[in-house]
């Protein structure tokens, strides 16, 4: 399997970059410099590690331990935490760029990093006024804690994250929680898990809260092993989660607010950025294939070149979609009404559906260019893993579920035809 990746062309990375320099104009010179150094570390060090182990992570369906050791060593797990708590306060566009860079080299690393940061966003956006969680965020930076997520559940709930069967059972200052049949990506490796439950065992299924529980506070009983077509390194096993913790570890905001005001945007944007990374590397492989063909037959335009032109257009649209979504989020941030409005929900759900389709379409298109060399597993233009990994995008929160939810809203929603809105 090929080890070629973005690492091979550091000097040209701008072509695959979501955010060319200069986009961070609003930031101070020092912050821009810090971002540049950070992204350079990701490109020159962490991406190399991720690329070197990507094939093994996929073959053995194992967690990308080497890449995460490198991410921890570089302090990249706590970068979203505000500076007052020791973090870097990295904005969503920087996190998105890191997801993309990682996924250009190892999809599972990119996706695990995205999922970790989606959890971090819940704390950063909703728990800054709470002493216990402030202390936990300081620990996230100092100890480089990896955060997992337990939002799904058995018993008919499945992937409907806005419904819980289990409830927070508070007895005095401590609560107990048992959640069955929940899929937890890298559950074994996580240092803490953010878990959803009904506010109390008697609360309605939609009245949920989210609690932070550290690995010393719970046990995980493995019920089903993650053996899938792609994204094999996320190790999204099924578990029965059982634990107890002080009640102060429950995030004060309702999960409804967390889901609407930060999780929706962070999840859809960071996933989209990860899928973009996979697609961008497929385009890179198609491009190098066309270059090699052109050198082999000087004077003739390779047959794949026209398709490559189309492919670059598609990648450009994909990138524009993500940038527009980030812009939309940045403008809405800090306005809970706008973040929970139907128009915002419709827009961000649209980002997820379009991004997942773009990723799969782009990789299939790249296949046509690389031909048998893309189909082979042992060629530098191999695309099999890209396609398998990207195929998760349409069903990771199934597009049909999302379109179904959106169509429910459309009976009252009136779209805004303005180009500038």
């Amino acid at each position, binding site marked *: 399997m090929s080890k070629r990746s973005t690492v091979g062309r550091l000097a040209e990375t701008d072509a695959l970059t979501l955010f060319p320099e200069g986009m961070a104009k609003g930031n101070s010179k020092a912050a821009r410099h810090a971002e540049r150094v950070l992204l350079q570390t990701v490109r020159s060090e962490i991406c190399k590690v991720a690329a070197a182990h990507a094939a093994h992570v996929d073959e053995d369906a194992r967690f990308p331990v080497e890449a995460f050791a490198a991410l921890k060593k570089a302090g990249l797990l706590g970068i979203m935490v505000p500076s007052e708590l020791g973090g870097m306060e990295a904005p969503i566009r920087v996190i998105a760029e890191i997801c993309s860079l990682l996924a250009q080299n190892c999809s599972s690393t990119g996706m695990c990093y995205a999922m970790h940061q989606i959890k971090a966003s819940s704390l950063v956006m909703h728990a800054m006024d709470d002493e216990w969680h402030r202390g936990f965020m300081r620990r996230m930076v100092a100890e480089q804690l990896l955060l997992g997520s337990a939002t799904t559940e058995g018993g008919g709930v499945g992937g409907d994250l806005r419904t819980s069967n289990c409830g927070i059972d508070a007895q005095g200052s401590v609560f107990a929680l048992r959640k069955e049949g929940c899929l937890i990506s890298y559950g074994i490796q996580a240092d803490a898990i953010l878990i959803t439950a009904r506010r109390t065992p008697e609360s309605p299924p939609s009245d949920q809260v989210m609690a932070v529980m550290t690995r010393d506070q719970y046990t995980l009983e493995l019920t089903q092993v993650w053996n899938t077509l792609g994204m094999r390194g996320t190790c999204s096993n099924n578990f029965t989660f059982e634990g107890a913790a002080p009640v102060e570890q429950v995030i004060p905001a309702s999960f409804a607010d967390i889901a609407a005001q930060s999780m929706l945007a962070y999840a859809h944007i960071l996933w989209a950025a990860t899928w973009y990374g996979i697609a961008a590397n497929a385009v890179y492989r198609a491009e190098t294939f066309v270059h090699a063909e052109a050198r082999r037959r000087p004077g003739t335009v390779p047959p794949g070149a026209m398709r490559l032109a189309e492919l670059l257009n598609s990648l450009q649209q994909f990138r524009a979609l993500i940038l527009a979504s980030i812009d939309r989020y940045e403008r809405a941030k800090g306005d809970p009404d706008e973040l929970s409005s139907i128009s915002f929900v419709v827009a961000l759900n649209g980002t997820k559906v379009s991004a997942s389709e773009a990723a799969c379409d782009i990789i299939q298109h790249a296949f046509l260019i690389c031909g048998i060399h893309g189909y082979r597993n042992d060629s530098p233009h191999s695309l099999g893993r890209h396609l398998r990994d990207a195929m998760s995008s349409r069903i990771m929160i199934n597009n049909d579920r999302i379109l179904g939810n959106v169509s*429910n809203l459309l009976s009252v929603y009136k779209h805004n035809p303005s180009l500038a809105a």
Partner: protein
Amino acid sequence: MKSKIREVLSKHGRLPVDIATLSDSDDLHAAGLTSFASVELMMALEEAFDIEYPNQMMNRRHFSSVTAIENALMKIRQDMAA
């Protein structure tokens, strides 16, 4: 107005509890109002009060309690009259 809102809520809110057990300021989301049901509720309110929710009013806060719904409806009526 509140009694009419309560009537619509009991028919279309899909609440797991009787609306009569909730006060005007009680949190409807905590009582089990789902986002799916709030869309149905919105359509029923538009019908019952002959108004149209503008996009910027279609958010969680304006459906958080009987009083919040009433305030939203009054604001919409005011804006429509203006």
